[in-house]
């Protein structure tokens, strides 16, 4: 993998969660979330580097790869994905800006290309931490950020990452909103899908 990709990947981990019931009440069909997570070398660990474009390019590459893997875990057409989110955890010898360079400039375009659409901002979270640090990947509807039933999050962690000179990068997708959502707000059948908000 490291030989064929720009990112030096040590490990990829995928997660699928299916929620079948809450408080004894059935969730039919089960709500499903999937995440694909890459553990990569941080090329800028241990030093201040002004130009972070290498990490931006890595973000572009991971945007496509991780989205494809996460969608494959759900076994649905990419166009059936309802919500998405992204997150990164930088090891202790890196800076938060390294996560920003991966997540923000170039990662989103390939995510939207894989999914066919994605008018809404991709919600994101980032942090610095040691091995096993949990990432709470925020989730929002991919075409209308205000769809309240799809405000959610998915926790992932990789026990042996990030090492000090690594970065953990995660993309999550779902085929649904929260299980048994009932706090009102904009619903998915009311989406206009023009401005990414409603």
């Amino acid at each position: 993998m490291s030989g064929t990709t720009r990112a030096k990947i040590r490990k990829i981990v995928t997660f699928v969660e299916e929620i079948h019931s809450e408080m004894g009440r059935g969730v039919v069909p089960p709500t499903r979330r999937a995440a694909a997570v890459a553990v990569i070398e941080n090329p800028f660990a241990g030093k201040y580097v002004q130009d972070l474009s290498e990490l931006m390019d890595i973000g572009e590459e991971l945007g496509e790869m991780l989205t494809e893997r996460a969608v494959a875990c759900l076994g649905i057409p990419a166009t059936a994905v309802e919500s998405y989110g992204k997150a990164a955890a930088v090891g202790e010898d890196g800076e938060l800006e390294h996560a920003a360079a991966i997540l923000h400039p170039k990662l989103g375009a390939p995510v939207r290309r894989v999914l066919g659409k994605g008018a809404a901002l991709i919600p994101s979270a980032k942090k610095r931490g040691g091995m096993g640090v949990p990432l709470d990947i925020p989730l929002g509807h991919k075409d209308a950020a205000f769809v309240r039933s799809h405000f959610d999050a998915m926790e992932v962690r990789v026990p042996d990452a990030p090492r000090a000179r690594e970065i953990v990068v995660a993309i999550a997708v779902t085929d649904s909103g929260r299980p048994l959502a009932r706090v009102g707000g904009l619903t998915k059948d009311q989406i206009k899908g023009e401005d990414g908000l409603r």
Partner: protein
Amino acid sequence: MHEVKVRKMVTVVEYVYHEGGPVAEKPLRRGAALAVIHNPFAGRYFPEIAGFMDDLKPLGLAMAQSLVAALGGAVSDIEGYGKGAIVGAAGELEHGALWHAPGGYGMREVLGGAKAIVASTKKVGGPGTRLDVPITHINASYVRSHFDAMEVGIGDSPRADEILLALVMTTGPRIHNRAGGLAASDIQGKDGLR
């Protein structure tokens, strides 16, 4: 006879390309199938619990099948396995022991003829508790290259009246294994040990 009530299923697959050494041509895959179920014995002591093992058999089989699928679908790729359970606070360790038979049965049924005892572990714990599930070779417990473990856990599980059940499989030895011992190529395959 107790109904097996599943609240949540989680599948985790790791693809390990390297750990600081040469990059593997085919990554090691390590996967876990997890199920969070209601503990029918939570809250007090029940002298008779063994019947629940039979109730769990279909779930064990379904989890083993979905785990093989998550690891690529080829039974012949599976070389290591293990199992475990985390019992929520209102249960006892013995409830976790109910997973030994149905968890092992499910994996053997799917893998066909696996000879080695399935390595296992269990504990009582709260939501987010982590479990290091031990892994050994499916046909010979002494194969040193395949001694491994996979850490699993779910942020919101197990609640007090739940049990988190785990099955784990791998597709090969540790990524940079070089600690000697019995090699997979030297398995005699008679007693499940060597």
